[in-house]
């Protein structure tokens, strides 16, 4: 996607958001008058800036001289690793309350490390165990920092 197109789309989204916020603020009760005024102020600024972004993108897309500025946006540089990592983090967040923080973290670190191309099993295992032992010893035992609980830890 060209940068001018992406800017135009973000600008349009900003305009829609500004209109939605201003519209929502009209429904606030009278006692929240200060909040309404503040939100009107913010949506006005957001709307104006979004309009400016849309105009910029329209102007730039017409100017041949500004081709450099309208170069393509590279959304994802390494799609397989990006999507795999994102999916692994979502699974990790989902599985943590079912397994408990420490077993879930152990599985997550081993699987993601391997998926990202680390092929030294002993080092991976040692690093994972070392970090989790550090978290347990320093944060959980010494500082009593809470971690998500579960049936296995």
């Amino acid at each position: 996607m060209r940068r001018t197109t992406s800017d135009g789309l973000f600008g349009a989204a900003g305009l829609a958001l500004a209109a939605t916020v201003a519209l929502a603020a009209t429904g606030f009760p009278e006692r929240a008058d200060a909040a309404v005024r503040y939100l009107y102020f913010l949506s006005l600024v957001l709307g104006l800036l979004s309009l400016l972004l849309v105009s910029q993108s329209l102007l730039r897309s017409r100017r041949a001289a500004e081709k450099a500025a309208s170069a393509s946006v590279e959304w994802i540089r390494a799609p397989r690793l990006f999507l795999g990592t994102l999916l692994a983090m979502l699974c990790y967040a989902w599985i943590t309350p079912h397994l408990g923080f420490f077993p879930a973290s152990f599985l997550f670190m081993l699987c993601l490390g391997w998926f990202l191309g680390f092929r030294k099993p002993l080092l991976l295992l040692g690093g994972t165990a070392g970090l989790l032992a550090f978290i347990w010893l320093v944060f959980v035992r010494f500082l009593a920092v809470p971690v998500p609980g579960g049936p296995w830890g």
Partner: protein
Amino acid sequence: MTEQLLPALTTLLEPSVLLAVFTGTIGGILVGAIPGLTATMAVALLIPVTFGMNPAAGLALMGGVYSGGMYGGAISAILLSTPGTPAAAATSFDGYPLARQGKGGMALAVATVASFWGGMLSTAALLLLAPALARFSLRFGAPEYFLLSIMGLASIVTLTKGNMVKGLLSGVLGLLLATVGMDPLSGYLRFSFGVVELYDGISFMPALIGLFSVSQILELTAESRILQEVGADPATLKREPLPKGLAPTILRGGLIGTLVGMLPGAGATISAFISYNVAKQLSPKPETFGKGNPVGVAAAESANNGCVGGSLIPLLTLGIPGNSVAAALMGGLLIHGLIPGPELFTRFGAVTYGFILSLFLANVLFLVLGLTCAPLFARVVRLPNALLIPAIAVLSVVGSYAINNALFDVWLMLAFGATGYFLDRAGFSLGALVLGLILGPIAELGFGQSLIMSDGSWRIFFERPLCLLLWLLIAALLIPAFRKPRRAKASA
């Protein structure tokens, strides 16, 4: 005061107090370096621990955690672009590019020295000028707080590297996100869509961890190592001499930190952003900021550690905590029967001055530890990303969960991380978004209260002398930023 210093020094030199300072500082550095684990949390958790200790040792332990924690945030901000504390967010703007260039050790050394001098300066202000400065801080009312937040927002023009409109849009988006939850004045619920966890607003730490840490994890998937510069590894990771000419920046940062820190509710994050902004505006090479200029690291770090002493000024003299860590410290004072006020400096002078002196010692300790360990810490950037990414993700989960003991915050962190990644790719400024999120509640409260005070008249923002001074400072920060591109265009 002088007659209290000798017994205070004797108290400080007791082995139990020295051990407390040492333990507290190391613990603080560890806590500060992990995103999401804040000095506030550590101090609050330590209050029951200190109950059985003598007051001097207990307070020294908490003071050590506060100082060490504020410094520790810089370590992960520089090496992983993941600020350990919100106050270190501005440190990452130049610290991380330096780490990628193989100058992580030097960046850490700059952060350590700047933090040390910022901390020493503010502790000296606490020791010598506390009562006078506390009276000054009381002159700040709602309109002044609103303008202070505007002054912080002026940093957006500095944080924006490319399109200024996108930078400003990011800041306004942050301000809008900060309106989610209960209206601070009327209690009306806004934009929470029935989600109970959003009633108090978007929890700031998960958002910060998501925007800086998770989006960075996703960015790193395309690279094998953080270190980018060819030939930078490993020779240049060794200790490098500190860059020259940092003294004025550090001094200015320490003063900004002390002054902003003593304003209740303002805090280390705003002062770091303001100091960074001022340093960039005054620099002869502002275009090097954000690309690895050590002056940026020094400005942010001296200001956030400058807040340590500053935030304790209104706490010890008036019983008004300058920020959340000072509020937790107040709990520690009260649990030992020390009521903030004049008696703290007379009847309990040995303990109070002992505590202040222990802050000096904590600064010296993290200076020694930081400078010794900087090259060691800097080796993190040599680790393969396949090992670093899972480790950062796990620590991010610990940090975001620990704030409210809620898994919702972990999901919130992931949502902010993914959104932040795409916003960053589209050229929006995550720093400006975070700044909007931080300053939103202060701006909204100041704005609303001011209009109530003035019966809806906007003139209140222009009538008070301190407001006029703040407007002048805002203009002084903004005008050069807008004049430079014009000058550049004209010369082209």
